[in-house]
């Protein structure tokens, strides 16, 4: 549904100033660029026009808290991305949550074994909607190096829960994970469901 909403703000100037002061930072600049709507700067206030759905998706995509979930070595790269050098907080991934009830995205960083599969399913079920899933690395995509001749490994996490974004690598470099996170943001901003994304290019 295309709802046109108009925000009129008397305090718009101060709102704009916050953006201006922080516009030194590239991340904030890109945030400003990606704002889905028009900002009309007027004397004594301002007007923003946008679609409600777009605004909601924009807000969602810029505040995605991942669940602390790492079953093997991909977790080390994941921690690296969370750390100061790569720092996914810059893109709104902010802080890893230890509870699925507070998390928006689960990054499956590692091998899922048959015994872990029900646990993963339960964690996913406990997450509040809207929720997203990233399959990080070969194991989460297909079982990877454990595809053949193993009795215990699930051959791809998408056998257990639906996956939004797949990241190739064993393990993927931190840049690859950041790319996956930003791909997820694009997907959320597009407003399409997982099924629509699959059928409509």
């Amino acid at each position: 549904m295309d709802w046109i909403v108009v925000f009129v703000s008397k305090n718009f100037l101060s709102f704009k100033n916050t953006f201006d002061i922080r516009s030194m930072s590239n991340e904030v600049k890109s945030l400003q660029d990606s704002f889905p709507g028009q900002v009309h700067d007027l004397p004594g206030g301002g007007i923003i026009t946008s679609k409600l759905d777009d605004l909601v998706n924009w807000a969602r995509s810029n505040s995605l808290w991942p669940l602390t979930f790492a079953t093997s070595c991909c977790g080390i790269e994941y921690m690296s991305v969370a750390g100061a050098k790569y720092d996914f907080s810059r893109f709104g991934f902010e802080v890893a949550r230890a509870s699925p009830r507070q998390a928006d995205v689960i990054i499956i960083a590692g091998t899922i074994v048959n015994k872990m599969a029900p646990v993963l399913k339960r964690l996913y079920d406990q997450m509040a909607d809207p929720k997203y899933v990233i399959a990080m690395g070969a194991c989460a995509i297909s079982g990877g190096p454990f595809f053949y001749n193993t009795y215990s490994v699930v051959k791809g996490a998408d056998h257990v829960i639906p996956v939004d974004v797949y990241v190739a690598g064993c393990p993927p470099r931190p840049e690859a994970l950041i790319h996956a996170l930003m791909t997820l943001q694009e997907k959320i901003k597009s407003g399409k469901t997982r099924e629509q994304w699959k059928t409509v290019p």
Partner: protein
Amino acid sequence: MTNEELKITITSLFATATFDEGGEWLNVNVETADWKSFAQRLRNDDQFLFDFLFCLTCIDWKTHLTMVYHAESTKYRHNIVVKVKLDAAKPEIETVSDIWQTADFHEREVYELFGVNFLNHPDLRLLILPDGWEGRNPLRKDFDDPVNMIKL
């Protein structure tokens, strides 16, 4: 003690023990029947004092199984590797969980993965595998699981 001194002392105590050459640590082969008394000696004898069993595992050679025990003395800082050959058809060996308590869990793990029966073990049941895996030992070379395994 150095490896050479260990070797001489062990030979004087257990004439049947043989040694594998090569490797950082002294490798001793012991008969299944001698294992319990040998382990007791390693742990309690004042000149050995192997009080830290830091690895307990098993190897499937298809023709037979080999139990491998790694022990260290925290007092003398010497190490030893003990290998015991087991019959693949009926793998049985005395438990050492009363000598080194850590062997309790390790032996349960070897029991579930290789099917080795540890005699006189206080609580021999599956460690990590879910219920219903008794008798199916996934680390044995002849193990087959047509449901979960994709053969290459």
